């Protein structure tokens, strides 16, 4: 169903372990989307439910990206090739996660259709979330610049075009993840 690498962030879970882990995650996500009324307050707007779904899937994508990028420096010259041993697993997992994200998002949207899907409060929260994401990316870029200046020899294995490209992709993922985490927290605070 969803066969990932044998190792996950340095933990060797094996092929069967990976399959069981991902199957459990999938079943949990689909169960949650079908019974979202049990997980959310009764009046939770569609935008909040979508932010939760996005947050969960982007978190999974982010950990897959971490797993993938951390393997790249060890590949040496192979890391410069798009079709390297690590990228195949990553591409398959990423595709499966995006399909899962689309399916679960669609189920949530269908089961919670409202006359107004997005109003001014949602837009205000989204704008604030965008600012939070941008602030985090700025901090991360400053951190990267500082690391390149202070620790050039330690970062040497990372200074390859495709690794740098993947690090930039990671910044985009971090930006989107921050936006959704911020949105979820803002919505939750309004219930408190």
């Amino acid at each position: 169903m969803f066969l990932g690498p044998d190792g996950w962030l340095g933990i060797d879970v094996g092929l069967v372990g990976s399959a069981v882990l991902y199957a459990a995650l999938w079943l949990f996500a689909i169960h949650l989307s079908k019974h979202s009324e049990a997980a959310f307050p009764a009046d939770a707007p569609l935008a909040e439910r979508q932010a939760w779904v996005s947050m969960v899937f982007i978190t999974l994508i982010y950990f897959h990206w971490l797993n993938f990028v951390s393997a790249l420096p060890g590949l040496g010259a192979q890391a410069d090739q798009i079709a390297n041993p690590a990228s195949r697993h990553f591409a398959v997992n990423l595709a499966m996660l995006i399909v899962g994200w689309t399916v679960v998002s669609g189920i949530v949207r269908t089961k919670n259709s409202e006359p107004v899907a997005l109003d001014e409060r949602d837009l205000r929260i989204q704008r604030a979330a965008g600012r939070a994401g941008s602030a985090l990316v700025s901090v991360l870029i400053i951190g990267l610049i500082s690391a390149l200046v202070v620790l050039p020899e330690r970062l040497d294995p990372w200074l390859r075009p495709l690794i740098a490209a993947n690090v930039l992709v990671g910044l985009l993922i971090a930006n989107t993840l921050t936006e959704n985490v911020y949105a979820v927290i803002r919505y939750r605070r309004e219930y408190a």
Partner: protein
Amino acid sequence: MTQAELARVCGVTRQTIIALEAEKYSPSLELAFRLARALGRNLEEVFRFEEK
């Protein structure tokens, strides 16, 4: 008028009406006027300004 009806008339989600009632959200001027009109009241009767 129920929260759901008010939300539908004003073009917002019911959660926004709940957040407004709980004073956790300050509406735009346009929404404030729409709410007052939907409730058949003047703006000052529905909302009051408080210095923080």
